[in-house]
């Protein structure tokens, strides 16, 4: 069992430390409890654009210096923005561990001192190109945007993706960015996880030294309650684009992260489409040869609902109607019969493997600790992930699968168009 120590500084910052000396490195992962669900309607994409600005310098760090100094010691680093949170992370050789904390503290306390219109305009262009590259210029690239827009009403915080819209990115001002920082980027809204070749005492003392001088700031306002049940009826969108093959994407509203229902949903999706011995892979890919690829995954979210997605890419020449019928039949069968004992054992073994794999390096473990620390107030919950998944019964998986019926999903169906991309 990996050690986990938690300390709360006077300014509200939560620090989590896990000692591990298998490598001469330290991972730092800072989670802020702010994501795209905290954005207002006309400023979609602001949380993510802001994440980019966090790499453009701060009170004592010049633009570009954050990457420059960390990479020059051999660090790997980045940031990500999701619906519920934004994180910044680096894994550094042991000797640069304090530098990593100092850089994180400098931008947590002093970002505004370096924020300029020039940086903002530049990173807006970069982010617009990120949107083009990852969404607009890829086959099926906008599918998740379509699914979330279908599955949630416009008033819901999960209606839009963190990448935001081009129009809103264009409209975001320097004042918006500064306001966003003042509202959400404060010690009391953050968790710093430190994992690796450093003692708990040393890590805690360093965290106090570098972050302790940042005022707590006002409490961040809570976003509106996003609690929603499953969709009452299927919502469907047929899309004709020059994609290489027809495809069927289904998305469901599922129980929130941290609930037993979320664990059961994860296992149900695994039984359905996780790995080549899953029901849909076995039937659609191997037996009936209707699909080239099948996959499913749970996005664990805390804003009143999680989401689960099932993706099926058809084989060229396969009949779409037949394929959809098989998908729906298997959804219904899992909901009515549940998994058999062998399937459940396999699903548990595979999700356990995925978890071990995901947390096998310092960065992955630090991310897990920050996740539980930030969204649930207790990083030690990370130790119990496998036990909680194993505790889910077959009956509970069947119950979870009742939410995964065809009539409960938002569905985007791709048809192949010839010719122009857009």
């Amino acid at each position, binding site marked *: 069992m990996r050690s986990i120590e938690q300390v709360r500084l006077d300014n509200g910052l939560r620090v989590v430390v896990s000692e591990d000396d298998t490598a001469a490195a330290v991972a730092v992962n800072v989670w802020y409890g702010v994501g795209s669900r905290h954005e207002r309607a006309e400023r979609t994409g602001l949380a993510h654009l802001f994440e980019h600005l966090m*790499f453009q310098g701060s009170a004592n760090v010049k633009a570009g210096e954050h990457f420059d100094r960390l990479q020059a010691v051999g660090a790997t680093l980045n940031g990500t923005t999701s619906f519920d949170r934004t994180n910044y992370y680096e894994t550094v050789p042991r000797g640069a561990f304090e530098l990593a904390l100092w850089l994180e503290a400098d931008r947590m306390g002093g970002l505004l001192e370096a924020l300029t219109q020039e940086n903002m305009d530049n990173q807006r262009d970069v982010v617009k190109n990120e949107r083009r590259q990852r969404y607009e210029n890829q086959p099926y690239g906008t599918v998740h945007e379509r699914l979330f827009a279908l599955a949630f009403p416009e008033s819901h915080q999960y209606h839009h993706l963190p990448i935001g819209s081009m129009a809103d990115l264009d409209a975001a001002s320097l004042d918006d960015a500064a306001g966003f920082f003042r509202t959400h980027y404060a010690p009391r809204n953050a968790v710093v996880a430190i994992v690796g070749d450093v003692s708990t005492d040393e890590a805690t003392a360093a965290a106090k030294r570098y972050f302790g001088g940042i005022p707590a700031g006002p409490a961040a306002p809570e976003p509106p309650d996003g609690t929603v049940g499953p969709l009452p009826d299927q919502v469907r969108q047929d899309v004709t684009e020059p994609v290489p093959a027809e495809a069927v994407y289904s998305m469901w509203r599922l129980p929130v992260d941290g609930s037993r229902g979320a664990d059961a949903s994860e296992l149900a999706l695994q039984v359905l489409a996780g790995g080549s011995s899953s029901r849909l892979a076995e039937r659609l890919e191997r037996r009936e040869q209707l699909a080239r690829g099948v996959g499913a995954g749970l996005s664990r979210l805390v804003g009143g609902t999680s989401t689960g997605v099932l993706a099926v890419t058809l084989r060229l020449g396969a009949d779409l109607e037949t394929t959809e019928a098989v998908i729906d039949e298997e959804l219904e069968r899992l909901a009515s019969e549940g998994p058999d004992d062998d399937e459940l054992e396999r699903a548990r073994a595979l999700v356990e493997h995925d978890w071990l794999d995901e947390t096998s390096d310092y960065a992955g473990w630090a991310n897990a600790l920050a996740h539980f620390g930030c969204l649930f107030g207790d990083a030690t919950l990370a130790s119990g992930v496998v036990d909680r998944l194993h505790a889910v019964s077959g009956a509970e998986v069947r119950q979870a699968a009742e939410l995964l019926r065809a009539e409960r999903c938002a569905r985007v169906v791709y048809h192949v168009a010839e010719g122009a991309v857009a």
Partner: protein
Amino acid sequence: MTEVTFQPRPDVAPPAAWRFPGASRRVLDNGLTVVRYDLLGRPLTSVQLVLDLPSNGDPDGLDGATAIMARTLDEGTSAHDGAAFAAALARCGAAYGCWTSHSGVRLELSVAVARLATALPLLSEAVRTPTFPQDELDRLVKQELDGLVSRRATPTSRARMELLARCFDPTSRMSRPVAGTEQSLARLDRKAIARHYADHVCPGVATLVLAGDFTGVDADAAVDTAFGPWPAGEPERSAAVDPVGTRPGVTVVDRPGSVQSVLDFGCAGVDRRHPRWAELSVGAYALGGSINSRLSALLREEKGYTYGIRAQFVPERRGGLFIVSSAVDADVTGPAVADVLRVVDGQLASGITAKERDDAVDFMLGVSPVRFQTADAVARQAAEQFLDELPPDYLDRRNAALREVTAESASTAFADAVTRDDLGLVVVGDAERIVGPLAEAGVSDVTVVPA
């Protein structure tokens, strides 16, 4: 407290000495080489079975024979059909993967150490007793054909396919996809696959790499039990062949309506056995290896033309590519291409600075303990080294060579390896919109091909 109190910037302690982990090596009676890395404290074990089968060993006209043969190994064995095999692997919580490249084949198993003795016999079964069922083979070939269509529809994959075809002579296997083309896949049948297996696959061409914390587990006995019964054989060996480079020229792959242009500048490059590999790595890093590299500083951080741009040597077992890759807003295709060429020209003409050299070398040396934390990372690196005929201490030697690199030596090596006349370009984008701007940027003699 309302004011922020900042601390002075801390110093960085010099990095501890690092070496790639040592291994124990033995050869079983049947000729199988077994390499074991004991890494304490890792919950997952990584097993890599490497098969020395370079793609140039595909029979004439049957490109993809090796890759498809390898992918079919787990789709039917003497003891399990494909579905039962997949279920057996899942039952022990093992992730199985088959990786094929121009270098060879890598079969991978990732499993908790407690389940190692259950999972190893499955890996052995796949490589020893495949039955190549006709229906599974047909399915994998059709999936690969669909895969080709999918990769052609994906701008970055389409660009790389075109660049490889343009950078290497058609007689070189590397000019064509590892898993074959529409024409060759149509010719692959069960007989050819089974014969390819029988002629080439035996313990003598294989290396088994294990990495993990084997405390309390008799890993050697598990290996002996699983792989001891594999009969020795007399394989037909295919030596890896040097590819023949050609001048790629400029190609626009027309993808009407594209909101971005995917850029792949490139030319034939060298592999990691090259005497100046360390110098070349430093040169490429300065040009486009990080967010503050010359190319990224200008095209991303100053002009906002792109989400990212990267320059690198991509080594294969023999030869490789030098590439500069990016995706830029379609509206700035011409100016972006002109900027890239100007930056490349600048580095070729004036070389890199001492700071650029230090940043590159310090990154590549410093990142080792960060990169090789897990059993999987160590085992994969070791497996790829075997496939590419690099010594087990390759990284230690490379790191020693890096320390000797100077700004001058890196600049010279880079200018010798990358010449402007050889540097080609593939653009995947909307031809109607970008051919004119490319000409304005000084890029002419453009061949336009359909996506």
